[in-house]
């Protein structure tokens, strides 16, 4: 088997759009080599037409995620050595349209982020005083637990509900909504609550924790969504949903 040869990795890479196919490449094995290094080697040395995406290479920007041997991963922080000696199979992220080769179209992912009102909305009139945010308050701790999201869409690609239900907002957008619902400075609570109470919102989540399992930042979107479910249920009982 070529992948077992010392010194080389056999790599199957998705080429084309939805109707593409796999191309095979042989890439020299290096110390501390990441999957992104492998892809970059192919693009620089073997086939300059290969399309893929990355920016920071240090796990901050969230742009390099792909499907690696069937699992969504951030490729700049995934070491080839940790994946075993076998061949590598690389595809674009699942649950998103394919643009070309390893680049998935993230528009639906970020459209849903916007639909969940996943952005900070300041109050209409700026307050003279600074908002007081006690770091150890329950709300701030809940927000902090989900705040380190890099928007990589790994969780979205790992989520079966996102695969089955095209309306589902997905773990990242809902996790972001949760952090904002716990931000005392934010002024869009009621509108956001209505957005996430919709059919594709938090109640569509099956709590099977695939998002948590795959999130490279070790976040727990399932817990954030459970928090939103409680919030929505309480608001429904209180008649507070717009």
């Amino acid at each position, binding site marked *: 088997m070529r992948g077992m040869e010392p010194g080389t990795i056999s790599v199957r890479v998705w080429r084309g759009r939805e109707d593409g196919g796999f191309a095979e490449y042989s890439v020299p094995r290096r110390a501390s080599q990441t999957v992104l290094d492998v892809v970059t080697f192919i693009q620089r040395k073997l086939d300059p037409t290969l399309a893929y995406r990355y920016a920071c290479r240090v796990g901050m920007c969230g742009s390099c995620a792909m499907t690696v041997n069937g699992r969504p991963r951030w490729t700049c922080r995934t070491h080839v050595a940790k994946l075993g000696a076998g061949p590598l199979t690389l595809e674009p992220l699942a649950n998103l349209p394919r643009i070309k080769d390893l680049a998935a179209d993230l528009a639906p992912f970020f459209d849903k982020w916007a639909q969940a009102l996943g952005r900070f909305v300041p109050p209409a009139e700026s307050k003279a005083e600074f908002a007081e945010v006690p770091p150890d308050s329950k709300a701030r701790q809940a927000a902090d637990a989900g705040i380190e999201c890099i928007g990589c869409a790994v969780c979205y690609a790992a989520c079966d*509900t996102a695969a*089955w*239900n095209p*309306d589902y907002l997905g773990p990242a957008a809902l996790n972001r909504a949760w952090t904002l619902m716990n931000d005392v400075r934010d002024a869009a609570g009621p509108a956001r*609550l*209505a*957005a996430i*109470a*919709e*059919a594709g*919102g938090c*109640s*569509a989540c099956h709590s099977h924790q695939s998002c948590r399992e795959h999130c490279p930042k070790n976040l727990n979107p399932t817990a954030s969504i459970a928090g939103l*479910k409680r919030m*929505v*249920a309480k*608001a*429904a*009982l209180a008649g507070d*949903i*717009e």
Partner: protein
Amino acid sequence: MSRARVEAWLFVAQRASAAALGVCVAVHLATIVYAVRGGLTAAEILARTQGSVALALFYGVFVLAVAIHAPIGLRAIFREHLGWRGAALDAGIAIFAVLLVWLGWRALGGLFG
């Protein structure tokens, strides 16, 4: 009522009916296990159930919980796996809920009356 509010209420109804079902199923099973010690005939069952208000109330609530829980769950399954959406699905699901209440209460009537 806004769509968001309807969905939120369906979610609450689904959870509340699940909690009720948990209790109902446990009581139902415990009663069966207790009642059939040493065998049980149809005549003996009817002798205990006919005219029993406690039975009618308990199973009346049980049927209602089923009629709330099952259709909402089915609606989610249809949406996810068959791509059904919209008013036709909701109408079909509502009919299913009414059917469950009717069949359940009819069976209960047979035991009680």
